[in-house]
């Protein structure tokens, strides 16, 4: 199992796994957005004045691509209204006043018989609101069920190739056995005999620890991987472990693979063995505006302002707030924004991290082509983007771009490459939709 993907970059990792996991005191108020996943947003199940318990389900949607949300503290609902979401929009949210009792409302742990039953596990995964906790937040239950019959290889992503973030690494070190049990459950739910756990070699202590627990007992094999970004990308992870390449426009299931992240596997364990829904996760708080990095077990719905305060406040004025890792994370616009299930990190950057220039000029060094893990040609794609030449953009496969940011990271001229490709993809989508509507209108006309 030693396949390699081409390209990739080596950013300065700046990780701090030596900082022990602390528990962040929950804030006085948590704001739980009803959309913490890709797919249909939830409808609130509670109203103002209701008393809620920790782990209680407070939002639901019966659509297949959705995941319920749960209260991360116990207390009283003080508002059900749109609040700023990390993605920038106002999203319907439930605001809970914390009573600091953490009165739990746990689900019944699964019985030993249920722990062997794929359907029971899947129902529990859905019920507990488990989503892709690596950041994509795709509903895990749907991912697993839609891949049934096609998937022969389950891959657990433990690369954690994003700089700064330590949550996966610390979960491996802190809960290795639980993690292996969680993977076993995912494997049973998926209906495969074996799961591969890809971990970057910079986490050798975690690899050794997991191997010492006889992972084969759980049907798991640990695969040490080269330290390279984007090793944790879904397509790169599949390539590294199986040698298969996901087809352009295709899904991992198309090559018989399903990839779930470390923290997701742990959430599955918690849901099935402890009856806990997803209400907290390890969040790495770092960046030059913060004095020292913190790896804190943080409740979902904690505001960024509160996190900054708990981490000792700003030592310098932040210029940018990044949610997630710095390579693929998004910028928050306000300190009122809250963490969600997929928030693995909160980074407060000052101008030190800012390397943009006013007038970037491509020098044609071709480094973007060398580092592109999808083997695309970013420099030419950018030129066609500038000319709005959609035909050529398609010909250069801009739609295959996974937006990993490697080209932009490596670009010495500081070109806004990834940004351009994201925009180009949206433009192409809009164009396709327009053309489709046109064709439909024409067909209707013809039918008349």
């Amino acid at each position, binding site marked *: 199992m030693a396949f390699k993907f081409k390209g990739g970059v080596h950013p300065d990792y700046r990780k701090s796994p030596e900082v022990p996991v602390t528990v962040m005191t929950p804030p006085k108020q948590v704001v739980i957005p009803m959309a913490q996943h890709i797919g249909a947003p939830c409808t609130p199940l509670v109203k103002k004045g209701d008393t809620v318990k920790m782990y209680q389900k407070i939002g639901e949607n019966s659509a297949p691509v959705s995941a319920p949300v749960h209260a991360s503290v116990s207390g009283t609902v003080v508002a059900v209204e749109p609040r700023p979401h990390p993605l920038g929009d106002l999203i319907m949210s439930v605001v809970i006043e914390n009573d600091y009792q953490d009165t739990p409302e746990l689900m019944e742990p699964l019985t030993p018989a249920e722990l062997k039953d794929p359907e029971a596990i899947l129902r529990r995964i859905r019920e507990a609101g488990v989503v892709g906790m690596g950041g994509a937040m795709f509903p895990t239950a749907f991912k697993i069920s839609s891949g049934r019959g096609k998937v022969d290889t389950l891959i657990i992503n433990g690369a954690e190739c994003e700089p700064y973030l330590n949550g996966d690494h610390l979960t491996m070190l802190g809960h290795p056995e639980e993690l292996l049990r969680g993977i076993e459950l995912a494997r049973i739910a998926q209906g495969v005999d074996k799961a591969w756990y890809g971990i970057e070699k910079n986490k050798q202590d975690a690899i050794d620890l997991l191997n010492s627990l006889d992972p084969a007992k759980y049907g798991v094999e640990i695969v040490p991987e080269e330290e390279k970004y984007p090793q944790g990308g879904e397509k790169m992870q599949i390539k590294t472990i199986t040698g298969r390449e*996901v087809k*352009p426009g295709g899904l991992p299931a198309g090559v018989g693979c399903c990839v779930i992240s470390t923290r997701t596997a742990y959430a599955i364990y918690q849901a099935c063995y402890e009856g806990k829904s997803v209400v907290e996760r390890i969040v790495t708080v770092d960046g030059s505006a913060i004095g020292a990095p913190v790896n804190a077990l943080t409740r979902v719905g904690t505001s960024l302002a509160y996190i900054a305060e708990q981490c000792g406040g700003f030592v310098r004025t932040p210029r940018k707030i990044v949610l997630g890792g710095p390579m693929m994370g998004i910028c928050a616009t306000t300190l009122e924004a809250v963490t969600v299930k997929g928030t693995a990190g909160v980074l407060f950057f000052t101008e030190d991290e800012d390397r943009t220039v006013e007038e970037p*000029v491509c*020098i044609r060094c071709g480094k973007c082509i060398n580092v592109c893990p999808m083997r695309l040609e970013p420099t030419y794609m950018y030129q066609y983007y500038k000319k709005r030449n959609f035909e050529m953009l398609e010909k250069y496969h801009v739609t295959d771009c996974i937006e990993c940011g490697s080209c932009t*990271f490596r670009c010495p001229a500081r070109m806004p490459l990834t940004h351009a490709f994201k925009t180009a993809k949206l433009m192409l989508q809009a164009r396709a939709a327009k053309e489709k509507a046109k064709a439909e209108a024409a067909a209707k006309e013809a039918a008349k």
Partner: protein
Amino acid sequence: MNEKKERMIFDVTYQPQVRTVRDTQRIMLDVIIATIPIVGFGVYRFGWHVLLLVLSSMAAAVFFEWAYRRLLKKSISIDDLSAAVTGLLLVMVLPPQTPVWMAVIGDFFAIVIVKQLYGGIGKNFLNPALAGRAFLTASYSGVLTIVVIDGVTAATPLGFLKAGNPMPFTLAQSFFGAIPGSIGEISSFAILAGAAYLIARKVIRWRIPAAVIGTVFFVSLIFGHSGYGHLDWALQNVCAGGVMFTGIFMATDYSTSPVTINGQILYGIGIGLLTMLIRYFGGYAEGCSYAILIMNLCTWAIDKACHRRQFGVSRAEFAAQKKAKKEAVS
């Protein structure tokens, strides 16, 4: 406290939020650093005039870039150091007796005509330093096509090879630089030291230099030359002329070389073949710089032809795609 925080405004950019420290300026600085052993050896061989030539040429190139952009009210780009690199590389391919004023004229041609008129860094389609050299050799061929050391005209090794005369220089002399020639070209040893630095710093990739030097070596090894041993002839072709320097420092010029991976190899092979074509059949003893200028013109077409097989497409599918494209054209 809340009031103060609400007034905080944050930057919002698309990912990634971090970038490497190595920017254009650092890359150009690396090129300058890589030429230190070469310039040093030039000074040792030909005297302090070389250093004067290098510094004044760099200063002139920077001045022309600044003045052009100032006059046309464009953003000043001299801090990316690319103009300094052009001025430096131009001197490297000139003979040691070149007067300073001549280098300055070359700088003017390289910076203003070749580089800035086409939009500046990244946009020029000819290598500015080599185009500057071609311009100077055409204009002052009497001064620049010979090499004068200590007031005496010396025949270059390639001159001997061209004429088919017995070679007075051993291979070691050619490799370490005890031969007459242009300032930057004589010591393959110093050039390789610079190349090692550039490759270690990932400023250049091995592909183009390897393709250029490899092609020159194998073509001369196969075809040989009467009066010389095949291997001897091949090694002299690689070490004694401009192949080593131009193949490493000039052919890898970002703006004027292909960016695609297969394209770079094709481009390097093209330079090697053209160099040997000129050396075997052309009027010049040297041929590398013209070979590069010709291949510069093919760069865009090469990049177009060497489209990469993207992730998820098998070799068979890629071949089918290409075939379908061909059929669509015909």
